[in-house]
């Protein structure tokens, strides 16, 4: 039995047989040919192209593809295969280097892919995955092996892959797939999107797992906690069966809570907002009883669609969401790209991207891009309760700079008499230790704080949670992290500005009592978790929470804190664990 932790990108729990789709590099040995064999190798390339084109044309018109975006992707692949200069590059390689067709295809496509991967633009570097997909298809045609389109599945499976390519996901019927677990990927990767669309659990960024899984391994995937269990023992399977069963029952029970307030037993009201990654999740926030959006991530605008979003793109996206929330708060975070948010793990040319040009820093150095977003945001601000939030603020100067640019944009709008809300609330994410430590100064220049625990933990503890060697140290249940959170809450209350927590801890049942006890009254969390967290809030009293928080304040180790809050939460809501 092996338990692995990754990033949960789509909720749910499944137990099924593993199906490994090995999309890792097929190593193609460099094989030389005799000059006399050149012509036949070049013919093989032509044949492979022709076969691949035929197959893609079929795939594209096939009934297995239900999404326009995937159709678009295949259309692009087709253009590549029909591109004479592309094919010539491969045949020229055979002519010059005297290699086999396989070797030429592999070498040239890798050259192109690494060219894309090396460009410091997330949208373009992401395209390397497309090139690998084309390479794979051509190689399969050359080797004559059947593609990894699966036979109609006879049983339920959980797909294990390095990173799913669009071809792979289009190539199998979805009815028998019970989950995706991938080695790579992030919240915005293809795998995540497809899983959400299908409503099945997915966990990504698991690191090397393929080697731990054999064809008949059983796998448990827990898309709520971001865990997979490989070859679980009977006890664990039983445990998870019950957990899955409980989740279903809990789900039914929790649905009845939808219209009830998130109020503690002793009458303290808590506001529950949703975190939204894609616009379609906004609907889910409402369905689950969320009272608004506490974190509207805008990265999707930059990562999909192919071109940099225009002011109108921004406006339309925000307008649609804020209109559907009729007067409820919608906190929109400005662009937060860079570091881990770059799809498929392709990094910008930075030796240490997490400490590099990311997020608000990137925006402040790319003003046209930043102003475009702010204009769209301000225009939408008349339609409802839009609030603007700047991510990764590290010091007061950055905050002032960002606000100055916001004012510039307001003046521009004034000039053209474009309406906007001049009193639009402006807040910041507190996710760096420097911001947390200077929160009392920052509070004077903004209307609210939102504590982003994921980055705050990473920067405070100097732990990369995607690094398996140290990831167990990554937790909010740490005296240093909690100390910072405590002082931020104190400073926000003192300055009488808004305060919420929007990091992952806000959706972890064991942390809810602690956060309430520390004085948090607004939580923004993943929409599927809203009912569960509401249930916890309705089951506790603030007095108990305060007591728990005081007790935790005296503890000096992660383990002690973790065990204590977990025990407390289990007493409140055993079915959530």
């Amino acid at each position, binding site marked *: 039995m092996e338990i692995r932790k990754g990033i949960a990108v789509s909720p749910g729990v499944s137990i099924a047989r593993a199906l490994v789709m090995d999309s890792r590099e097929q190593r193609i040995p460099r094989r030389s040919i005799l000059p006399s064999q050149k012509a036949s190798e070049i013919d093989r390339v032509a044949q492979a192209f022709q076969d691949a084109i035929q197959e893609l044309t079929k795939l594209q018109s096939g009934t297995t593809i239900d*999404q326009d975006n995937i159709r678009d992707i295949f259309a692009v692949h087709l253009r590549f295969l029909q591109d004479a200069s592309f094919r010539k590059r491969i045949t020229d390689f055979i002519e010059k280097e005297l290699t086999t067709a396989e070797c030429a295809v592999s070498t040239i496509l890798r050259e192109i892919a690494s060219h894309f991967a090396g460009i410091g633009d997330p949208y373009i570097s992401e395209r390397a995955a497309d090139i690998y997909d084309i390479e794979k298809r051509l190689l399969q045609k050359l080797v004559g092996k059947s593609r990894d389109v699966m036979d109609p599945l006879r049983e339920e499976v959980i797909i294990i892959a390095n990173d799913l390519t669009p071809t792979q996901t289009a190539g199998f019927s979805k009815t028998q797939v019970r989950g995706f677990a991938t080695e790579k990927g992030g919240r915005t990767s293809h795998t995540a999107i497809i899983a959400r669309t299908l409503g099945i659990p997915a966990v990504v960024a698991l690191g090397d797992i393929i080697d731990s899984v054999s064809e008949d391994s059983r796998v448990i995937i827990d898309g709520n906690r971001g865990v997979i269990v490989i070859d679980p023992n009977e006890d664990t399977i039983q445990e998870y069966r019950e957990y899955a069963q409980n989740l279903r029952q809990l789900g039914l029970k929790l649905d009845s809570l939808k219209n009830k307030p998130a109020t503690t037993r002793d009458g303290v009201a808590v506001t529950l907002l949703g975190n939204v990654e894609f616009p379609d999740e906004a609907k889910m926030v409402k369905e689950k009883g969320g009272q608004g959006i506490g974190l509207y991530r805008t990265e999707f605008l930059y990562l*999909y669609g192919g*071109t*940099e*979003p225009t002011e109108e*793109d921004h406006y339309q996206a925000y307008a649609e969401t804020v209109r559907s929330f009729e007067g409820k708060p919608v906190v929109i975070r400005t662009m937060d790209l860079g570091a881990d948010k770059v799809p498929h793990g392709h990094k910008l040319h930075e030796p240490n991207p997490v400490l590099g040009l990311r997020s608000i820093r990137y925006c402040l150095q790319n003003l046209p891009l930043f102003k475009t977003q702010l204009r769209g945001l301000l225009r939408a601000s008349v339609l409802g309760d839009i609030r603007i939030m700047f991510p990764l603020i590290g010091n007061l100067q950055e905050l002032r700079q960002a606000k100055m640019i916001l004012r510039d944009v307001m003046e521009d709008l004034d000039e053209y008499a474009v309406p906007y809300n001049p009193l639009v609330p402006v807040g910041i994410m507190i996710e760096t230790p420097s911001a947390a430590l200077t929160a009392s100064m920052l509070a004077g220049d903004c209307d609210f704080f939102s504590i982003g625990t994921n980055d705050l933990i990473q920067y405070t503890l100097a732990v990369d949670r995607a690094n398996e060697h140290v990831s167990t140290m990554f937790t909010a249940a740490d005296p240093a992290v909690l100390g910072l959170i405590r002082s931020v809450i104190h400073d926000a209350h003192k300055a009488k500005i808004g305060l919420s927590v929007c990091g992952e801890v806000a959706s972890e049942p064991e942390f809810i009592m602690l956060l309430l006890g520390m004085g948090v009254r607004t939580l923004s969390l993943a929409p599927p978790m809203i009912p569960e967290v509401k249930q916890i809030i309705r089951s506790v009293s603030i007095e108990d929470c305060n007591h728990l928080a005081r007790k935790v304040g005296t503890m000096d180790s992660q383990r002690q804190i973790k065990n204590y809050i977990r025990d407390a939460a289990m007493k409140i809501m055993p079915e959530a664990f």
Partner: protein
Amino acid sequence: MRPAMLFVDVAGRYHSDIRVSHGPTTVDAKSIMQMTMLAATCGTTLKILAQGDDARQATDALRELVEVQMFHETPAKRPLGETKT
């Protein structure tokens, strides 16, 4: 890559030899490989040079695609799973 695809499709309709430059790099406008490797992200200035009997029409059509139609992008292009209302 969708914009590159549209660009290449439009260029392909003309007989003229069409070259696109971005900085020091010049590529064939009819090749999707070359166009995508140009890495022209949004906001890049491209120079288009066409030679042939329909050169004028070709450059006009490409200009139209990029500057006027903005690659037919509907406002707020959304990721998968979004239902349009």
